């Protein structure tokens, strides 16, 4: 039975605390009727209710309009616990710690990029390792890996020459979380990550070449350096095997500590510990290190994309790719709301700071933090900015993508990979993906309607639409 929902706003539903005795706070979901019908078909609402039982959870737990069933937390879930004793749950961040999205903007339109999109996607596919387990070009010494874990982007820019200092200004948390402690990352996690910096990974990770198709807010677009017709590159990847192993290690450790900590949960994958406990502190330090690794990964990939771009475009005007911003969508952060420090878990959700937030780069103050919402393969993606109202409405959080609607098997039943490849080709979208089956798994039909998802967050007031991007080329991980 699906939990009872009360509509409490135009696009806001609530499951009250009375639904289950173990709920500590209500569960709220941002959705319209169509999205609510979709997400009621899987167990995501029940999973969100389970999150509402975490010790120390405060305000409300939140489901974004792209929410779908996950394991433990739903994907598209947000929960904050009150510090110092509220818990942190590795399952509330997920295995792909700091999976995130980075947008690079060029200064040219597609017609001015002489080598053409086909050549660009082809060269990207040759230069960037994709898929599971492929070696990257940067194999790190143990000391260098520890520096990446401790310092994130700052280290790969300064010591490894991967990008420029000014890139750091346009990355969430400047690509480096200060609580990181490499000694809390296991040898096994380091072994998995040792040769994976600068690799895209598999699943739904991608690099897309895109065109700015529509502007909704010209002033905000101008502040972000976006213009109609502009060529851009969107990157989506995370902390690779290193982050996966950090989560595996700490879910196991916390699961075994639950009885001692006096914590009883409806789902073992929600295993957690107070952030003030040794288990909680150790996980947070390791998670921050893995998040730094993910930002460093996107920075190294940025350097590779720039190298390909400049090789093709040559020197001079049009050769530059500027980092618009980089956002995490699987991470926990300590943030202040109403004068109180909270541990905000965002799993498949993006931070959405408003125009007045002091953490914004000076260029974006008065505009809002950029947020990137990738659609499914072949559909539009969106640039949004955060609102000040989101702090109260959604713990300064918004959606992270279209959100899966169908399982991978169901997607393959519905769509043939070779047909999809031809259709994308007919629409002028260049695709590089190793197999038709993998292509079908990520087909647009497998996802919710990203335009509807974005409309809901705009109507809810937790983000504002700035621009729509359409794909010209896709390199699938």
């Amino acid at each position, binding site marked *: 039975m699906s939990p009872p929902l009360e509509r409490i706003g135009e696009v806001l539903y609530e499951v009250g605390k009375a639904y289950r005795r173990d709920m500590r706070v209500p569960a709220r979901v941002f959705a319209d009727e169509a999205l609510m019908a979709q997400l009621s078909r899987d167990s995501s609402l029940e999973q969100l209710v389970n999150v509402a039982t975490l010790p120390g959870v405060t305000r409300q737990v939140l489901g974004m309009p792209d929410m*779908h*069933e*996950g*394991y433990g937390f739903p994907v598209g879930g947000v929960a904050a616990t009150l510090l110092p004793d509220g818990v942190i749950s590795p399952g509330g961040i997920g295995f792909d710690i700091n999976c995130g999205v980075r947008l690079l903007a060029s200064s040219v339109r597609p017609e001015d990029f002489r080598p053409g999109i086909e050549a660009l996607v082809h060269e990207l596919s040759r230069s960037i390792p994709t*898929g599971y387990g492929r070696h990257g070009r940067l194999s790190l010494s143990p000391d260098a890996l520890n520096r990446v874990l401790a310092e994130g982007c700052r280290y790969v820019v300064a010591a490894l020459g991967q990008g420029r200092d000014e890139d750091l200004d346009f990355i969430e948390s400047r690509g480096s979380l200060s609580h990181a402690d490499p000694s809390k990352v296991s040898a096994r996690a380091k072994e998995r990550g040792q040769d994976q910096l600068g690799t895209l990974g598999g699943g739904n990770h991608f690099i897309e070449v895109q065109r700015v198709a529509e502007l909704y807010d010209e002033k905000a677009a101008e502040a972000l350096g976006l213009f109609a017709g502009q060529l851009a590159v969107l990157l989506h990847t995370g902390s690779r095997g290193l982050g*996966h192993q950090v*989560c595996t290690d700490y*879910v196991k450790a916390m699961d075994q500590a639950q009885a001692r900590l006096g914590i009883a949960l409806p789902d073992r994958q929600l295993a957690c510990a107070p952030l003030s406990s040794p288990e909680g502190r150790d996980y947070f330090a390791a998670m921050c290190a893995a998040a730094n690794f993910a930002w460093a990964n996107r920075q190294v990939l940025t350097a590779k994309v720039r190298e390909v771009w400049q090789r093709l475009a040559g020197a001079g005007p049009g050769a530059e790719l500027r980092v618009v911003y980089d956002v995490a969508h699987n991470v926990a952060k300590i943030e202040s709301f109403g004068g109180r420090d909270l541990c905000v878990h965002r799993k498949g959700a993006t931070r959405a700071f408003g125009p007045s937030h002091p953490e914004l780069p000076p260029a974006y103050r008065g505009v809002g933090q950029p947020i990137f919402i990738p659609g499914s393969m072949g559909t539009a993606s969106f640039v949004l900015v955060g609102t000040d109202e989101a702090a109260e409405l959604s713990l300064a959080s918004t959606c992270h993508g279209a959100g*899966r609607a169908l399982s991978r098997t169901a997607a393959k039943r519905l769509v043939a990979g070779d047909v999809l490849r031809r259709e994308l080709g007919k629409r002028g979208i260049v695709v590089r993906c190793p197999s038709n*089956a993998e292509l079908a798994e990520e087909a647009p039909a497998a996802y919710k309607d990203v335009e509807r998802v974005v409309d809901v967050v705009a109507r809810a007031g937790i983000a504002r639409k700035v621009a729509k991007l359409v794909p010209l080329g896709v390199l699938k991980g």
Partner: protein
Amino acid sequence: MNGHELEEHTGEVRLRLEAADWPGLFTEAARALAELMTGAPDVKPPAGQPVELTVHAPDRAALLVEWLNELVFLSETRKEVLGEATVVSATANEVVATVRGYEPAVLKTAVKAATLHEARVDQRDGRWHATVVLDV
């Protein structure tokens, strides 16, 4: 006869395993993971060096999850799919086994980890059944 199914889940993959005895679940789990990773139902004859494993956990469900996570770790670091497992001994809290595999031409599905979410092991009608959700 032992068997497995890769069931639908919106974002991930739910693994259902069945075996005549408790050690058989570990053998079947290795086979199922290899099938998921390569997309091929038949496990190829192993060509890589055998690896000896000992895995511990507080209960049966956690032990199966741990076993799968050990295979995920070894697969990623050895660049092999480890579909053949010979179980030396298996209790409720420990499994000792040798696994072997091969380096596939293409890995179709990257498995991040096995989860404790809805992880279940039970014995019905004299057979062992298990469910594990994998993050892919």
